[in-house]
């Protein structure tokens, strides 16, 4: 370990290890590795590519692209056809990648309308289609008999011998893993995780869930298509028998075995499932039972929260290994006063009504929230506070009425577009995605405001580096303001409730929004956390932010709010500053009931 550290290696630079192994694998033929072993390594690499695409879509994005085998088959047939027609392998590789991406796009279409396992099952359909589609194009695919007469690979005009082709396969794998690693460690990786854990949170950050879902299917299909393309030359033969149901299961089993939310796990899973059957002859007869058991066991481990937290902790330790400790103590905690100025925005709610079925949740409610003020919405359970918050933040459409931001109507019912107009929110139960550090969880708020394209992130282009630097800098501002700076490298999931609420505020403000909607942000907080929260909200207000607070905690509201609106069963029953509301009879009745209220209100007055 010390030697490694003396070489300047730490958690951040640990990628040189897999790269070193990759280079070793590339030059293996010239190190005297035998032909049989090279063939095995090649099969591992090809399976790993396919599995890696599934990891991207499923492990990170939560979209079970179960039809991955179909992308692989398509890649194989496209390349088989093209090289028989005399095209170069480089052309065939490109064509296979494009074709499988297009097929990935088709399978992602249902994701536009439904979510979850329905999309996965639809993509499963592709697998039972393979034999029929092959039969539909007998001249191009060789039909049920298979595609024979595939020539030796010619890459960029040069015929490759076995060793050179092997090296090409390995180079492709190494390049893909590099690109994949760059992608998942960028903010796109965070965005995928956010989508996986909570499409609602993603929308509230302005992230277009449909688009990123489609992207994950398309991107996950590409390595599978490339793998299929390369597979053609392993046996110089392609037949529909290669692409049966068992092969589809093999891919999922390898993903589960290596760890779906990993970059290099794909290689491990692929290696185990390639070498195991080759070493043990009996394995063949029982292979389906064993693969099935892997799926059941893997599925259980995959969804095991304790294991996940432990694995995330381990990964984090590796990443943080050898890195400088984050600053601790008062210097790092900072004061919320140093907030950057927020552009002033006024939110006006005009006569908004909303019913759920026959239940009228809001009845022509109007209010105004001004910049540099904290506006509070209070009322008993079921009074319509949260419904109004959900309407302003675009999660519900209103039956009638409008919400205006600086005079322009907000697109009600469109959370993503609302978020992009600069309206951010937090949630009653903080939504903190797993396997992200606090810093990452805040930085993902900047995904839309300071966007970097995927290609740019994949190759770490100058633009990516600039934005990454800004992420660190801007993120640090909000981390300091919320007192989370000394936990920036810790797992966000492991934060205390108070810290998670602060994290949500930091993330919301990191989007660049100056309208901040807080949904019962104080519930469950202890006194110390309440003080922190109060100081933060005052600082946001003083920086020019427009804060709308939905709250049960009467004392907190009267302490903080400049303007208070009281709702009762969907109707606005009072409006005023804290002193006014405290003495309002209707409010007291709403809170304390008819019997007590009148006397109490008089007593206070």
């Amino acid at each position, binding site marked *: 370990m010390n030697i490694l550290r003396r070489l300047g290696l730490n958690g951040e630079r640990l990628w040189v290890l897999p790269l070193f192994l990759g280079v070793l694998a590339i030059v293996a033929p010239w190190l005297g590795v035998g032909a049989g072993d090279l063939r095995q390594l090649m099969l591992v690499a090809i399976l790993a590519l396919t599995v890696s695409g599934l990891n991207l879509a499923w492990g990170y994005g939560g979209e079970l692209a179960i039809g991955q085998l179909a992308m692989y088959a398509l890649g194989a047939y496209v390349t088989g056809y093209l090289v028989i027609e005399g095209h170069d392998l480089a052309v065939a590789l490109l064509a296979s990648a494009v074709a499988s991406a297009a097929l990935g796009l088709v399978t992602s279409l249902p994701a536009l309308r439904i979510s979850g396992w329905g999309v996965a099952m639809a993509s499963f359909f592709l697998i*039972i289609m393979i034999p*029929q589609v092959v039969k539909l194009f007998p001249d191009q695919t060789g039909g049920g008999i298979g595609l024979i007469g595939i020539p030796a690979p010619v890459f960029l005009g040069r015929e490759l011998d076995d060793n050179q082709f092997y090296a090409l396969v390995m180079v492709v794998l190494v390049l893909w893993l590099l690109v994949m690693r760059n992608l998942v460690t960028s903010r796109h990786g965070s965005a995928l995780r956010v989508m996986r854990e909570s499409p609602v949170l993603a929308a509230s950050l302005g992230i277009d869930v449909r688009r990123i879902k489609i992207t994950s299917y398309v991107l996950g299909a590409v390595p599978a298509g490339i793998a299929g393309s390369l597979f053609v030359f392993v046996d110089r033969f392609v037949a529909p028998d290669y692409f049966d149901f068992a092969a589809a299961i093999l891919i999922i089993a390898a993903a589960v075995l290596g760890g779906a939310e990993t970059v290099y796990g794909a290689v491990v899973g692929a290696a185990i499932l390639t070498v195991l059957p080759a070493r043990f002859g009996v394995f063949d007869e029982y292979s389906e039972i064993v*693969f099935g058991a892997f799926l059941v066991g893997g599925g259980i481990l995959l*969804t095991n929260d304790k294991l996940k937290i432990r694995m995330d902790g381990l990964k984090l330790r590796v990443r943080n290994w050898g890195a400088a400790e984050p600053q601790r103590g008062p210097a790092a905690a900072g004061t919320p006063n140093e907030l950057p100025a927020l552009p002033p925005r006024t939110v006006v709610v005009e006569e908004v009504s909303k019913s759920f079925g026959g239940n009228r949740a809001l009845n022509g409610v109007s209010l105004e929230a001004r910049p540099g003020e904290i506006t509070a919405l209070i009322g008993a359970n079921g009074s319509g506070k949260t419904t109004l918050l959900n309407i302003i933040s675009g999660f519900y459409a209103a039956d009638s009425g409008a919400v205006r931001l600086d005079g322009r109507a907000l697109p009600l019912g469109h959370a993503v577009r609302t978020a992009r107009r600069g309206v951010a929110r937090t949630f009653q139960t903080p939504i903190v995605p797993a396997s992200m550090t606090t810093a990452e969880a805040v930085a993902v708020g900047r995904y839309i405001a300071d966007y970097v394209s995927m290609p740019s992130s994949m190759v770490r282009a100058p633009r990516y580096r600039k934005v990454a630097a800004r992420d660190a800098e801007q993120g640090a501002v909000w981390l300091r303001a919320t007192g989370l700076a000394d936990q920036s490298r810790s797992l966000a999931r492991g934060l205390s409730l108070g810290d998670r609420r602060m994290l949500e505020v930091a993330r919301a403000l990191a989007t660049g929004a100056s309208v901040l909607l807080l949904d019962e942000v104080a519930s469950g907080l202890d006194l110390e956390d309440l003080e922190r929260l109060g100081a933060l909200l005052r600082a946001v207000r003083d920086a020019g932010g427009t804060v709308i607070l939905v709250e049960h905690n009467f004392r907190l509201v009267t302490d903080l709010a400049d303007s208070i609106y009281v709702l009762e069963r969907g109707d606005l029953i009072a409006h005023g500053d804290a002193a006014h509301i405290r003495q309002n009879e209707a409010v007291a009745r709403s809170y304390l009931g008819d019997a007590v209220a009148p006397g109490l209100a008089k007593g206070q007055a």
Partner: protein
Amino acid sequence: MATALLTGLVLGSIYILVGSGINLVRIATGAFNFAQAAVVMVGAFIAYEFGVERGHSTLIVILVAAAVGAVIGVVTEFVAIRPVAGKGLHGELVTTVGASTILTGLVVVIWGTEVRPVAPFVSDDVVSIAGGRVTVDGLVIIGVAIATCLGLWAWSRLTMTGLAALALSEDRDAATLRGVNVRYLSILAMAAAGAIGGAAGPIIGTQTLAVSTVAAVVILKSFLVLIVGGMGSFPGLLVGGLAIGSIEAGTVRYLGSEYSTFMLFALLLVVLMVRPQGIFGQTHERTV
């Protein structure tokens, strides 16, 4: 024409029988049980083993198949559904695909990959209806499928357990708070779905024969039927099943068998794009 339609109704009835079990489990546990068609396949092999090889009566065959199906259902519940239910990442789908694969693997180890015969259920005589030809067993399947589907529908609407299951599918937490025993219902549903699937095996087997590769195809087409009809809806399942079966048989008859899956996939995409909740499904407003 009439023959193609009758063939379609028989096909559709197979999907309805499989779909009934899936719907039942879906309502009670929220999980999509991918292994349901594999249980039917096991039932078909039991029909081969006990009916053809050992010459037992149809009643014995059905009872054995239902019992084996129920056991498989309960084991699947304990091993593949309970540990992952509601934990995300499509865990239930992965584990039940695993269960399905294990069942297929077991069938291959015990009976091999060859196609095995299944004895006629009532009779394999061909009868003529409205100018179309269909076997008596084909008609039996249609009748059994409709009866099963309507029976489960009545169960879900008219009995306390059925209503409890429906409540569970609407809101798991709320139903639990009202005293609905989630675990008991989950086991009950999986046992019942397993028994239905197992018992359906000898009947469906008269059409598909006992073959280890049939499960994956049948489950996906049943899934399509459920999507078209509306997931969790029994009337939707009935209408969707008969419609999809007819479309499939019609495609095979007039375009050729190699177009059938293609056609169904296109149909799936269209339904998902145009009416993702299915014909009889309901939409819910998104909640935060």
